[in-house]
């Protein structure tokens, strides 16, 4: 008998059958991968495991015991820890408080603060996570928050640990910390469920693998020894995907966007770069390199203190995103939960919020057109949803990301498109569609900036890469110079001098 | 015959005074066998709705104590539109020109008159205690948002001044709300500001306001014989004070009779509706001072028990 068993799990949401009759099992001391397209039901399965959602049918057994959870607290007591797909942190509390929330070390209700901080500090250090446990979470960057989230896995002596896309906003360096952690947990004999859209990681880490499709079990591999990546992709998507990147050479035009010496509160050192019409420029860097900060300055999401921006030679002065949009610059930001989705509103409204100004008259909407745009992008990006009227919070993480992308891809008359971690949480199948759309836009003359922590992605789709490190641009590589080593070298903080200077 | 239905609308339904008016009006209703509809209307808008409501219920007339006398023309028009006979109690309606609307029958006592009675009671008590007006401070617990309140305290002040009180010895203690706590807080400030004055008199909108001033004097250590507070109303708040084992600075309260105001107005309206006997255009009642020693007798005299 296996240590962790799912048998005949089913779960239905209004209008969606998220899981139907899913059964599989995992051995003790194994890392088990869970893959599937966006909306396949991975997170739902994890939520059922964590007691957050109750399954309509089926049963989970751990170590031979059938589990019955009424709440997440029961699951904790049974030794189940789940790191959810979206960050679940309380910004106003400190790192240590977040990590011990729900299980504070207390004496008669009074928190043993000193003990808590030192314990958490030690555990963080032993896991190689360099974050002060006394810092408030609101002062951390997204990447750091993700590390805090991951640290939850080692705060308690758990039997089963599930990680839902833990690396989606991590760069390779932080990912390595996570992988080391997972190795350690495996050695301790825990059961680990690992969800990811990155095939490399799954093949590197996992002992066994389950693939879900449309809420059903599509494949189960007790061992990954004889399985190929192509096979897994086919099981997930239902078809072969030969070349995910699909890059083709393009003709570049004049300089479209020119950023000259821009700086702001969070990015003290002035940065300059330019992008040509038809070019896809990649920005790579480790977490905290300042890429997102730079892009937010360009988009006027944060106020710039110095610097000049020109689009097609015309200087742009914007104090707020709505002005930046009017001058032809848009930014799809990295934090979809905080800066992207508009909770409580439908997909249709989330897609149309910006681009609708092209089809309104005297401020009155054109409902026909809105439906058309929404339907187009739902189809184009393969958003899995019962209807365009669905509230966006009811979508799976990857599908939310697609909707936010749709918001910006539906824009007309845009000259510069900046996408920050555009494929975060998106499955391989949809990824290639998105790249295809980006190429299309570039061919039509748009200047595109892609910020990504995924090295294969920037190398796969960009014409040129700028590397950032410690808040400044530390390297530039043209496509023919692309090499993993060179890029990583420029991204590492101890390197002071730029490694590659393009002519 | 058609059932007789009469409305009785008051401006502050939670106030004991209006509760009493309603109680006595109910008594009249029971005696004469008509239906009494009691509605509270705290502001002009509620009042207009209340009149509509009465019309809809098929009432034939109503007695009203209006939240504001300036509503006069509106009330008259609304009553006519709903075909209701109209009488006022306590507060008399005025027209756009600021003069009383004579054709609406009214029973009441003017706010200024009550205030003057309070002032007189204070002056009498001062004389009895042998106080010199120059060494006495007066707390005017005020709630100027309410015109009736202004008229009452101004009435009291006019008597005090006529009896040698200096204007600079009268101190304003504005209540933020009309309850005792607000009066207490406001009066405390006045007392502390003028710590050199040892003898005080207090008056205000009602018993609760004056009680606040008396409590304030106690909390800063002024003995009962250093304070003369005279309230208005004479309902339970005042009686509780009189019942206390030792006398407090709350010397008396000017009682107006809710019996006459409630019972007689309802009866008059009934006679008007049922027997077509029009009431007198103006009946003025008088207030009576009740003190610790005689409040039971005074209340009995006024027909309240």
């Amino acid at each position, binding site marked *: 008998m296996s240590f962790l068993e799912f048998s005949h799990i089913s779960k239905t949401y209004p209008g969606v059958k998220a899981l139907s009759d899913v059964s599989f099992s995992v051995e003790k001391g194994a890392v088990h991968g869970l893959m599937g397209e966006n909306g396949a039901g991975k997170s739902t399965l994890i939520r059922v495991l964590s007691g957050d959602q109750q399954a309509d049918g089926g049963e989970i057994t751990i170590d031979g015991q059938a589990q019955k959870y009424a709440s997440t607290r029961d699951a904790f007591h049974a030794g189940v820890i789940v790191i959810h797909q979206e960050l679940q942190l309380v910004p106003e509390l400190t790192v240590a408080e977040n990590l011990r929330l729900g299980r504070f070390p207390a004496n008669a209700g009074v928190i043993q603060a000193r003990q808590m901080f030192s314990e958490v500090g030690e555990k963080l250090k032993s896991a190689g996570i360099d974050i002060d446990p006394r810092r408030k979470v609101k002062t951390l960057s997204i990447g750091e928050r993700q590390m805090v989230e991951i640290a939850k896995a080692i705060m308690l002596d758990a039997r089963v640990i599930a990680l839902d896309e833990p690396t989606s906003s991590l760069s390779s360096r932080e990912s390595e910390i996570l992988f080391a952690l997972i190795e350690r947990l495996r050695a301790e004999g825990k059961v680990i469920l690992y969800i990811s859209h990155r095939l490399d990681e799954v093949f590197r880490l996992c002992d066994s693998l389950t693939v879900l499709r449309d809420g059903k079990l599509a494949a189960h591999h007790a061992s990954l020894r004889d399985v190929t990546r192509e096979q897994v992709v086919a099981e997930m998507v239902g078809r072969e995907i030969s070349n995910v990147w699909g890059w083709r050479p393009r003709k570049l035009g004049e300089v479209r966007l020119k950023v000259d010496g821009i700086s702001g509160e969070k990015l003290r050192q002035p940065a300059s770069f330019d992008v040509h019409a038809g070019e896809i420029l990649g920005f790579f860097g480790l977490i905290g390199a300042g890429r997102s900060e730079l892009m937010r300055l360009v988009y006027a999401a944060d106020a710039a203190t110095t610097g000049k921006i020109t689009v097609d030679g015309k200087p742009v002065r914007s104090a707020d995103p*709505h002005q930046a949009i009017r001058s032809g610059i848009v930014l799809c930001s990295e934090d979809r939960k905080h800066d992207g989705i508009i909770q409580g509103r439908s997909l249709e409204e989330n897609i149309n919020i910006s681009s609708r100004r092209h089809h309104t008259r005297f401020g009155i909407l054109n409902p026909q057109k809105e439906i058309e745009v929404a339907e187009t992008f739902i189809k184009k990006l393969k958003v899995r949803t019962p209807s365009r009227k669905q509230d966006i919070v009811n979508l799976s993480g990857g599908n939310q990301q697609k909707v936010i992308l749709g918001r910006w891809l539906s824009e007309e008359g845009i000259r510069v498109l900046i996408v920050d971690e555009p494929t975060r949480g998106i499955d391989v199948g949809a990824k290639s569609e998105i790249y295809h759309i980006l190429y299309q836009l570039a061919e039509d003359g748009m200047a595109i900036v892609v910020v990504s922590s995924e090295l294969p992605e920037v190398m796969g789709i960009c014409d040129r890469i700028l590397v950032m490190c410690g808040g400044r641009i530390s390297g530039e590589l043209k496509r023919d110079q692309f090499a993993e080593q060179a890029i990583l070298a420029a991204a590492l903080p101890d390197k002071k001098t730029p490694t590659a200077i393009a002519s | 015959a058609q059932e007789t239905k009469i409305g009785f609308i008051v401006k502050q339904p939670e106030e004991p005074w209006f509760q009493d008016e309603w109680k006595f009006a109910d008594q009249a209703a029971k005696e004469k066998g008509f239906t009494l509809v009691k509605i509270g209307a705290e502001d002009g808008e509620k009042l207009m709705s209340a009149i509509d409501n009465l019309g809809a219920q098929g009432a034939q007339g109503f007695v009203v104590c209006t*939240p504001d*006398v300036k509503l006069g023309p509106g009330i008259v028009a609304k009553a006519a539109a709903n075909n209701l006979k109209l009488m006022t109690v306590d507060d008399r309606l005025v027209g756009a020109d600021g003069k009383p609307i004579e054709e609406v029958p009214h029973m009441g006592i003017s706010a200024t008159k009550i205030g003057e009675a309070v002032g007189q009671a204070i002056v009498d008590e001062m004389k009895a205690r042998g106080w010199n007006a120059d060494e006495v401070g007066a707390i005017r617990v005020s709630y100027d948002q309410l015109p009736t309140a202004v008229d009452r305290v101004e009435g009291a002040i006019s008597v005090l001044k006529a009896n040698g009180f200096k204007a600079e010895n009268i101190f304003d203690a504005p209540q933020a709300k009309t309850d005792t706590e607000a009066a207490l807080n406001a009066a405390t400030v006045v007392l502390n500001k003028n710590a050199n004055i040892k003898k005080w008199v207090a008056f205000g909108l009602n018993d609760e306001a004056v009680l606040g001033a008396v409590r304030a004097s106690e909390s800063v250590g002024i003995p009962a014989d250093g304070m003369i507070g005279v309230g208005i109303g004479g309902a339970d708040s005042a009686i509780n004070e009189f019942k206390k084992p030792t006398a407090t600075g709350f010397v008396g309260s000017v009682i107006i009779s809710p019996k006459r105001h409630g019972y007689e107005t309802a009866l008059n309206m009934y006679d008007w509706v049922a027997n077509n006997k029009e009431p007198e255009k103006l009946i003025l009642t008088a207030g009576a001072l009740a003190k610790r020693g005689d409040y039971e007798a005074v209340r009995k005299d006024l027909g309240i028990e």
Partner: protein
Amino acid sequence: MTNQLKRILLGDQGLVVIFVVAFALVALLVPNFLTERNILGLLQSVVTVGIVACTMMFCLAARDFDLSVGSIVAFAGMVAVMASNATGSIFVGVLAALLCGSIVGLFNGLVIAKFRINALITTLATMQIVRGLALISSDGRAVGINDPNFYQLALSKLVGIPTPIWVLAVLFLIFGFVLNRTVFGKNTLAIGGNPEASRLAGVNVDRTRIWIFALQGLVCGIAGILLASRITSGQPNAAVGLELSVISACVLGGVSLAGGRATMAGVIVGVMIMGIAENVMNLLNIPAFYQYIVRGVILLLAVLLDNLRSSALGRR
């Protein structure tokens, strides 16, 4: 058949259905309720709350809060009366009141959006300041109307229905349309759903918020004028506590205080439920003290029912 019934009952418009059923019950059980006179009276009694609820809906939907509405209504009424008394022209009076209302609203909006001051505190402050202005300008006393034509604003009828009810109906229509069919309405809802995301999506958040408050002021001006005409005077103490009634009506009608959710139909139902409760209690002659309890229980029942309905919906 039963399925269809279920869909109607549990659908988006479920609150409306519950309301219709409740209305039918009341009409059957309460004598004198379903008479033309009473219904007109009832409608007139909700005019002020209803008018102000139109824009309060926007305010709450954008995660804001406006406590100053009662004061603005009173102040605008005073201004309307005093200005028309002074100039002899009702038109000038009406214009002045609308202007004053809008200015106060604009002030609220500017302070809240530009200085980023908490809306609760800002409007609490203007609530006090404006009430103070109303009291000072009239020395705390009601101001009578010189020109009897002013009364006609509230007394005149069109097709047998008093003008204020028409005004209310027209405003319901306008703001219903604005909420669902205009960029302004959609932006308001988006801001309430996620202000930062809306800003990054190119919504001019500051301008939208300022507009919402300015509109709120304007609409309070309209309510103030009608109220002054109805009570035939400008009263500095009018509409005290209006904010709470209006906000309750909105919340009862499904507007979320956390922003992002609002429907005009819901708000209309909320306003009507509160109005009918008052009306019926008076028709049934419920004693004043018990009215408090009944009012509270009705509020609880209304949300509880709606809740059961929507959780049944969730469980479908």
